[in-house]
């Protein structure tokens, strides 16, 4: 008599609905044809995946689920076997990944370039400079604010290489003019714009970034700013749950004619963001 029959029925229905809500995700789980790709925020945020993945899924029926984190985290996740394919842009780390046995068959996929962006008033006076390390040197000398990824990503590693070339270690100045955000590219750009700081970013993310304020592109075209993306299959020998067949299908498609064409056709405001450069059997 604590609950009248009617109320008991309603309660029962509600609980059943909840149990169903729990069971459904489980059911949807099983038998779904998908692979997990650990990739970077730059490819995600630019919108590249939204453009090319539907083409692949249409062709093969395989769904591609992208987890977008920094290169460091992507490789670590793949090392744990929490992904079938890795698509990142830090060749030394990729080669180490393979050497350590976590991945097999690295292939070039596409490239773009890095650029140095900054506030229109250019406090460090780097306008017109053609070489990235030189620009960084001037920024350090002027102690103009600079926003760094600070997260072991491909972009971050590239940035550190450029500082090394400039003969400067910015890290002691961390927290003063050198701001290490420890975040993805977009978040770092938000910080840069907010703090009127310079930043190193890949062109694709910058083109699709919607919060540019009055920022301009300052340094571009330096060969050192070349940015190569590589794709690797997670080693099925190390983790039996890896979907090697479907993963390889994705790699083959992306480095094959159709995938490469899809990459080339991705544009924002008419400008191409990524340049396919897969070589047969590279």
């Amino acid at each position, binding site marked *: 008599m604590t609950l009248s029959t009617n109320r008991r029925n309603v309660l029962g229905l509600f609980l059943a609905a909840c149990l169903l809500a729990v069971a459904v995700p489980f059911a949807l789980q099983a038998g779904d044809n998908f692979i997990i790709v650990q990739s970077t925020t730059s490819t995600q945020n630019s919108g590249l995946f939204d453009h090319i993945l539907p083409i692949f899924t249409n062709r093969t029926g395989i769904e591609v689920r992208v*987890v977008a984190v920094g290169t460091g985290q992507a490789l670590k996740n793949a090392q744990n076997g929490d992904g079938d394919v890795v698509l990142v842009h830090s060749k030394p780390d990729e080669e180490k990944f393979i050497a350590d046995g976590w991945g097999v068959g690295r292939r070039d996929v596409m490239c773009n370039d890095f650029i140095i962006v900054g506030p229109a008033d250019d406090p460090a006076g780097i306008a017109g400079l053609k070489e990235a390390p030189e620009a960084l040197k001037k920024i350090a000398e002027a102690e103009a604010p600079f926003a760094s990824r600070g997260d072991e990503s491909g972009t971050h590693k590239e940035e550190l290489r450029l500082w090394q070339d400039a003969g400067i270690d910015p890290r002691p100045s961390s927290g003063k003019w050198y701001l290490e955000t420890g*975040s993805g590219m977009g978040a770092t750009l938000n910080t840069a714009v907010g703090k009127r700081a310079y930043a190193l970013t890949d062109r694709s993310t910058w083109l699709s970034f919607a919060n540019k304020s009055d920022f301009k592109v300052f340094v571009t075209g330096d060969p050192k700013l070349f940015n190569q993306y590589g794709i690797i299959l997670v080693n099925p020998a190390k983790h039996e749950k890896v979907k090697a067949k479907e993963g390889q299908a994705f790699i083959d498609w992306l480095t094959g004619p159709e995938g490469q064409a899809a990459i080339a056709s991705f544009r924002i405001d008419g400008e191409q963001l990524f340049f396919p450069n897969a070589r047969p059997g590279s």
Partner: protein
Amino acid sequence: MADLTEAFHTALRLIGTLDPKLIGIVLLSLKVSLTAVVIASTIAFGLGGALAVYRFPGRGAVTATISALMGLPPVIAGLFVYLLLSNTGPLGVLQLLYTPMAMIIAQVIIVVPIVGALTRQACEDLLEEYDEQLRSLGASSTAIVRTLLWDGRYRLITAVLAGFGRAIAEVGAVMIVGGNIDHVTRTMTTAIALETSKGNIALALALGIVLLGIALAVNAALMGVRRFALRLAYA
């Protein structure tokens, strides 16, 4: 400020046109958080009630731990669940990582301490008044727990709604264990994080406005329930 006005317009447009992407994200958020809250409450009611009524060695330690866990940073719960569900983890065989189920598990871990501690408090308060009478009537400890849980139902509803509020607003844990995968594990909060990182501030704010709307609706419901309960001296 321009962003804010644009955000309001965007929010109204998305809601007014029943934008399918928005609907998908909202439904997923609700599904994950509601399921998590139901599961967590079932566990937490029993836990809180038992803690209030039963006497056992270590009771104080357990009570203090649950209360402390209320302040557990959600991202830590996310990390913990990630380590469990990762392919190298003990529950890797379940292949639950990057699925809504993983997000539900993480949110359950976050919500149980909140609802549990509030349940325990409610039961203890009731027990102060009821203890002697219930024992005089011959109630066993289990019967006492059941009596307290039903009698405290309005306070428990408040606790559940508090847990839901925490769950639906959570972003750290679901990001780690869900992976923010489009159409699969992208919730309102992870979508907001994504749009912010793409610089789409207005869209991010718009999503935030929708999320706020849901939270307000929940709180309005809560106030309604409490007023009703007070009228009947059931609170």
